[in-house]
Each structure stands twice: as C-alpha cells, then as structure tokens.
C-alpha cells in the first residue's frame, strides 16, 4: 500500500542576501489531501512553492515527493515525478492559445519521439487536443479554445493556468493564489472545481489570502509567519490559535473576519 | 548593473592608469632597445594608437549598454557619418549652396554635429517607444533591431548623397617624432591622448556630477531611479548625446590621422569596437579602454605576423571565445544594465 504521505518538507530553509525568507519549515501533505498554506504577506509562502518546484535551490532541509527525495532534482524532473503548479502573477504563454497552453501542460506525459513529432495543431480531433479542450470545459471555461490568451480577460486566464497545471495529471498541485482577482461568482466556481479535482486523487497545496475560499477548499491549513511555521491543523483551530491571531492582527488581517 | 561592476570603478583610477601607462612606456622603451626589438616595439606603438580610436567608439557602445541595456548598432554608423560628412563639407561646403568648401576644422565640427544629431534622432524613434510588454526572450532586442534599421537608413543615404567611393580628407597632418628607433606620429599620439582624455572626462562626469549619478542610478535600476526622482525621460537623451559626441570625436580623429574616409569605415571600426567592449566587459568604461587598446594591439600585431585576413580571423575568434568562455570580460560584472525603461 502506498505511503499516505505524498509530500514531506523537513527543515526547509532559504535565505536571500542576509534575509532568512524560509526558516526551518516542516509539514506534510497526504495523498489526495487539500492543504492550505496561509500567512500574512511576506511570510514566505511563494518562496516555499519556488523551493518545492525547483525555481531556487534550498539552503538546508529535505523535500520528499512520494518517497523520493527531489530537492536536488532539476525542475523538469520534479514535473515528471508528479508535481505541477500555478503562479501568483499569471504566467501563461501570451502568444499561445488557451488550448495550446493546456497542451503544454501535457508535455510531461507526452514522451517519446512519436509524441513529439505528431502535428497536434493539425489534429483538432486528436486525443491530446480533445483532452485539453475537455479539461477547459470541465473548468467551466466557455471560450474559444483557439483564442490567444493575451486577448482573454484576467479571471479566465487565471483559470486556464490551473487547467494547464492539471493537464500533467499531477499527484500534487501547487496553486499560488488561484482566486486572486476573481469575483465572488468565479471564486465559488473555482472552489467547486478544485474540490472536484481532489476527489480524483490529486492532492492540493493552496496559497491564498481569501479565507473563505481556503475554508471552502481546504481541510487543513499550515500557517507561516516571517518564514516560520507557526501552526498546523484545521481552519477552525487556526482561528482560535493565539499565535495565528497575533500574526494576522499585526498585518491588519484577522483570520476570523477575513474573506 | 550589479554593484560589483559599476560603470566606473573607484579607487583613484587616474593613479592606476598613470601607473599602467608608465609601466607600458618603460616596457616598450626596453623592447625598442633590444636588438631586433625595434620593429616589434613600433608595431606595438602603432597598435596602441589604433586602439585609441577603438577605445572611444567602444566607450560609446559600453555606455549605452551599461545604462540602457541597448546594443546600439548605429554607433559605428555615426562614426562613419562624421567622416563622410566632414569630407563632404570640406569638398562642397554647406548644402543648398550656402557656402563654399569649408575649412577642415569647421568641416570636422560639422561632422561631429551631424553625428550627435543622428544619435538624438535614433533616441527619438527607438527608445522612447519601448514598452516592456511580455518580457519574452526576444523583446530585449527591439531597440537593437531599430538601430539596425537606422544603420541601413544612414548608410544608404550616405551612399546616395556622397557616393560609394573611398575618399581622402583634404587635410592630413604628418609630424613625426623620432624617439630613438621609434617613430611616433604626433597627430596619432595626440589622438590617443585626446581619446583617453575624453574618456577620463566621461568617467569624471559619471562619478562627480549630478547627471552622472543619475545615469549610474538608471544603470543600476531604472525603477528605483524613477522612485528617487530621477527624470529618466530627460536623462536618457544625454546617453545618446554622449555616444554621438564620442563617435564624432573618434571619427574626426580618425580622419585627421589616416585621411581615408569611406561609407564602409563604420563597419571596420564598429566591429573592432564591439570586440573591445566585450573583451573589456559590457558596461565597463575602464574595460572599454583596456579592450580598445588590446584590440588595436591584436589587430596590428596580427597583421604584422599573419597578414591582414588572418588577423581578422584572430580578432573575431578571440571575440567569440570571450563571449562564450568569459562573457563578463576583464572588468564587467555578470549582469549588464537592466535599463528597460
């Protein structure tokens, strides 16, 4: 039986210049779980994502994905190991269409010279394209899949990024503020979509400031402040924890009243 | 630009340069006194003189890249414009028959003015329109491509108006100073000193004046510079003005020393100046000085030992190797200006 723990971070540490941005952070994400990573601005949440996905090398600590130590793997290999992510500032390929961005996400699964050299753009009924379009539809995106993304509105692009990350059928999905800038209707729909994803077995690690959203989507939370982990547990318990309240009140946010 | 490679390094550069120059002079003198060393010493001297021209143009390149992250391919064209326009003015005088053939000094001045004007035209139509859109891989090259467009415009306008023949500028100084076995052309020596003088003046400008500090802050970080109140839109044209001036001076000195002008003189000098800039380190003025002299030496000694064409291969191969193996050159930092404004 596979290990219950999918992602394990142990003693993760990273400094930039003299500043310790991530300080001895440890937590776990279980298979199929939905975990929120929250904390005031500047707490180091995006940096943790960047360390997990391999944008920066770690200074100290260990990262294990599905039993495999990935901290020394190049970013590409971490994707192949089952990791995918979205970005705080949308980083879609502006000159590619919606469906092409999603098909890019499939790249990790489409290995081999044959897959690389089939003219997928000429095969609208081809398996990869239909899968990509289906993913877009499931996310509730009623758009022309051939539309170049630079022309699409913000909310839609945000969702396309999540769909792109999903296209690699990851074991673990890192989502960096997926609801930022979305209106209440879009936010609710995204929450529904993410819960649906999790039922298929993909684990979610979500960074968010919208506490209502976190409450909707995540079972548990890990709270960071100034790069350190100050709490891990349920959302309800987090609201009552004095260290957490202090962290947020200090940053003009009270988790009990946010969202 | 990272803090490790400012446009100008501190620590009494004048003292260091004076020391280096003195040491070089002693070495050359020693070499000249050795049996059979005179020819080599003469070649070295010629190489340094040629290098002086390259220094000035290389500094123009490196200043633009250091502050604006912009490889301005119009720079060698401005060098050529100075020479060709000066020749045209000396030969025919002002356009529309406003005067007869100008005195050589006025003609050179006219050439320099045209160079500066051309530079400001380039600024008006390239840099001011630059908006960082997506930050993709080829976007940095937009002003570079524009400068290539201007290169074509200026070069072919010169071909149309002034013809494609190589010409001789009417005045050429020949005043040789015989120093033992060595022959120093005084005009060439004067040019070398003038080039270096202008470059030292430029580095003084960058370190000690308000405008200079504004330029360096833009090189460091254009966003911070704007936050600190630097009027970027007024300072940027100064870079173009300075590079136009440098090219003009280099062109004028070249013409006075070697007398040959042609619509293609920009290409010959420009490519060496780029090599000089890279060898010295993009964005470093001292690097441009060292690089310019080095390239002058390499070219002259290369021609002496291997012949003209082979020398070109040597210089270009050295450049390619430098870019691949040590892109930061002698004095450059690992990053050049982020000046995408």
């Amino acid at each position, binding site marked *: 039986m596979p290990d219950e723990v999918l992602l394990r971070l142990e003693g993760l540490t990273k400094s930039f210049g003299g500043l310790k941005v991530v300080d001895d952070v440890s937590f776990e994400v279980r298979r199929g779980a939905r975990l929120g990573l929250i904390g005031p601005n500047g707490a180091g949440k995006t940096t943790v994502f960047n360390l997990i*996905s391999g*944008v920066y090398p770690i200074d100290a600590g260990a990262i294990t994905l599905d039993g495999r130590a990935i901290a020394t793997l*190049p970013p*590409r290999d971490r*994707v*192949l190991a089952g990791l995918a*992510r979205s970005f705080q500032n949308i*980083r879609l*390929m502006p*000159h*590619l269409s919606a469906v*092409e961005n999603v098909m*890019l996400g499939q*790249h*990790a699964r489409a290995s081999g010279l044959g897959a*690389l*050299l089939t*003219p*997928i*753009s*000429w095969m609208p009924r081809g398996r990869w394209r239909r899968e990509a*379009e289906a993913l877009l*539809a499931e996310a509730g995106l*009623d*758009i*022309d*899949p051939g*539309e*170049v993304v630079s*022309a699409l509105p913000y909310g839609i692009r945000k969702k396309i990024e999540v769909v*792109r990350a999903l296209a690699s059928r990851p074991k673990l999905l890192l989502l960096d503020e997926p609801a930022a800038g979305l209106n209440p209707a879009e936010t609710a729909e995204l929450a529904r979509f993410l819960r649906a994803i999790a039922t298929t077995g993909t684990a979610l690690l979500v960074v968010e400031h919208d506490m209502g959203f976190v409450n909707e989507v995540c079972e548990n939370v890990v709270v960071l402040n100034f790069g350190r982990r100050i709490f891990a547990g349920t959302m309800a318990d987090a609201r009552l924890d004095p260290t957490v309240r202090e962290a947020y009140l200090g940053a003009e946010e009270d988790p009990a009243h946010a969202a | 630009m990272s803090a490790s490679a400012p446009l100008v390094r501190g620590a009494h550069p004048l003292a260091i340069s004076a020391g280096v120059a003195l040491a070089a002079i002693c070495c050359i003198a020693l070499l000249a006194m050795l049996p059979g060393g005179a020819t080599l010493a003469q070649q070295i001297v010629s190489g340094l003189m040629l290098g002086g021209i390259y220094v000035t143009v290389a500094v123009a390149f490196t200043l633009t890249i250091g502050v604006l992250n912009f490889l301005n391919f119009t720079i060698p064209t401005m060098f050529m414009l100075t020479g060709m326009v000066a020749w045209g003015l000396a030969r025919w005088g002002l356009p529309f028959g406003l005067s007869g053939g100008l005195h050589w000094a006025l003609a050179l001045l006219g050439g320099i003015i045209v160079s500066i004007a051309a530079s400001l035209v380039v600024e008006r*139509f*390239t840099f001011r*329109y630059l908006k960082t859109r997506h930050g*993709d*891989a080829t976007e940095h090259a*937009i*002003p570079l*491509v*524009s400068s*290539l*467009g*201007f*290169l*074509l415009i200026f*070069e*072919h306008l010169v071909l*149309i108006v002034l013809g494609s023949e190589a010409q001789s500028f009417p005045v050429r100084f020949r005043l040789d100073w015989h120093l033992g076995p060595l022959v120093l052309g005084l005009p060439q020596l004067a040019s070398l000193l003038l080039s270096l003088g202008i470059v030292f003046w430029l580095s003084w400008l960058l370190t000690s004046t308000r405008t200079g500090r504004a330029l360096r802050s833009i090189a460091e970080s254009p966003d911070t510079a704007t936050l600190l109140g630097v009027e970027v839109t007024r300072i940027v044209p100064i870079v173009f003005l300075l590079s136009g001036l440098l090219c003009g001076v280099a062109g004028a000195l070249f013409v006075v020393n070697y007398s040959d002008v042609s619509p293609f003189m920009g290409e010959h000098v420009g490519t060496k100046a780029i*090599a000089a800039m*890279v060898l010295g380190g*993009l964005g470093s003025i001292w690097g441009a000085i060292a690089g310019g002299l080095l390239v002058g030496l390499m070219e002259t000694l290369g021609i002496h030992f291997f012949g003209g064409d*082979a020398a*070109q*291969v040597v210089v*270009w191969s050295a*450049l390619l190797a430098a*870019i*691949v193996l040590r*892109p930061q050159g002698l004095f450059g930092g690992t990053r*050049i200006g982020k000046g995408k404004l």
Partner: protein
Amino acid sequence: MSGYWAGILAILAINIIFAYGIFVTAAAGQLNLGGAGFMAIGAYAAAVLGEQLGWSPALTVPAATLVTALVGFAIAFPVLRTRGVYMVLATFAFAHVVTGVILTQPALGGAMGLVVPDYVDLPVLIGAAIATTLLVFWLMATRLGLAMRALHDDELVSTLMGVPARAVQVASFAIGAGLAGLAGGLYAHHFSFVEAQYFSALLSIYVLLFVLIGGTQTAWGPLVGATFFTVVPELLRIGGSWRYVVFGAIIVAMMMFRPEGIVTRTLLARIGFRRRRVADAR
C-alpha cells in the same frame, strides 16, 4: 516567364528557405545574427563537394544541408550558454569567423571565390522552397514546435512544465542552421559561383530583419517577410540604395508600432480561421 521575373523568383525561393532557417531559431526565442555564416558553410560545402568529389547537386545539396546542421549543432552548445545580447554578438562573431576562415584558405578560393559546377534551375529552387515551407509548418504544428514557441514566451515556466529547454533550443538552432545551409547550397549551384564577400554581416542583418518584419509567431511570417524584401521593391520600382533606406525606415516604424511583425496569431484569427467554442468539442 520573362528572364527578369525568373531571376526574382529564384532569389525569392532562396530567400524563403534562408528566412525559415532564421525563423526556426527566432520562434524558439533566439536571435541569430550570423545567418550568412551558415549559408556560407552550405554554399561552400556544396561547391567543394561538387568540385572535388564530382557529386551531383542531388547529393551536394543535401550533404551541404547536413554539414551545416551539424556545425549548427556543434556551435549551439557554447553559444546557447550565452543569453540575450551576448547571443546576438556570439552569432555575429561566428559568421565573421566563417567568412574570415574562407578568405584565408586558398583551397576554398580565398578572396577569388569558387566556381560551382552543375547548374540548378528554377523549378528545383521552387520545389525546395515549397518543401521547406511545408516542413516548417509541420514542425510548428508538432509538440516540438509548441515547446519551441513556449520557450520563446517564457523559458522558466516552460522548464517547469517539463520542457527540456536546452535540448529544444539546440534542436531549433541546428535545424535553422541546416535550412540556412540548404539555401546556401542551392544558391551556389544556381549562381554557379560563390565568394566570401557575398556572405557579409549585412546579409545576416537583412535576413534577420525581414524575418522579424514578417513575424515570428507563425510559419506564415517568413513567407511574408521574404516576399516583402524581395518582391515589393521590384513592384514599386524602387532601386538601389533607396530600397534599403525605405526598408530601414519600415523596420524602425515596425519596431515602434508593431514589433511582433506583420503576421501575428491575432491577425490570423481575425482573417477568419474557424472559431469553435469549447462546448462544441463534446
């Protein structure tokens, strides 16, 4: 067809192939300012193989393409370690090294040039141009082409999607070099003479410029760019140096107002390629 227009068409065909060579690397995010160097390698390879080994063009041209692609492959590793303006300079320097070496080798004709045996006629050029066009359209339609275009837009994120950035960049550089070599080999056999002075820095500049004018987002770009550069001045009867003044002015204007080039994906969409909504796919 009159001899005059046949000549234009021949140059157009060669320019299209050359343009695709530069396009392939530009579409992947790298600017090659040394195109003429690769074309020279192809031209001289074809010339030497035809002259020394007596091979017919049916052999020399593919061989020239392969040789140039291999050189491109070899040079890609050091050059792709550089970035941005350094890469532009490295390719620029490389082209000069190539012509410099040619000029100093008497075996390659030095400054006198080489006569090339076996004439290749217009239909062959047109056929090669069509084949190249189809090849590049196909390449851009594949997952490899998608990876290349993604690298152009955002290399870091592409890597995070699992794209092997270095491998794709080397491949696009080598393919581009090969196509430039193909253009060179065909040029050699059609004009029956090659000299290093033709493969100048200006030639590298021209081809890069008209590829950028055409647009690097889609495979239609090089067709538009090459046609624009080769045919339009003829149609407008602009001769000699004025042609380049106008060309330069258009470059400046394009960089100011439409740096992505004439043909963009949004333009193609507006011209009216079929639009489907996601719902139709089910």
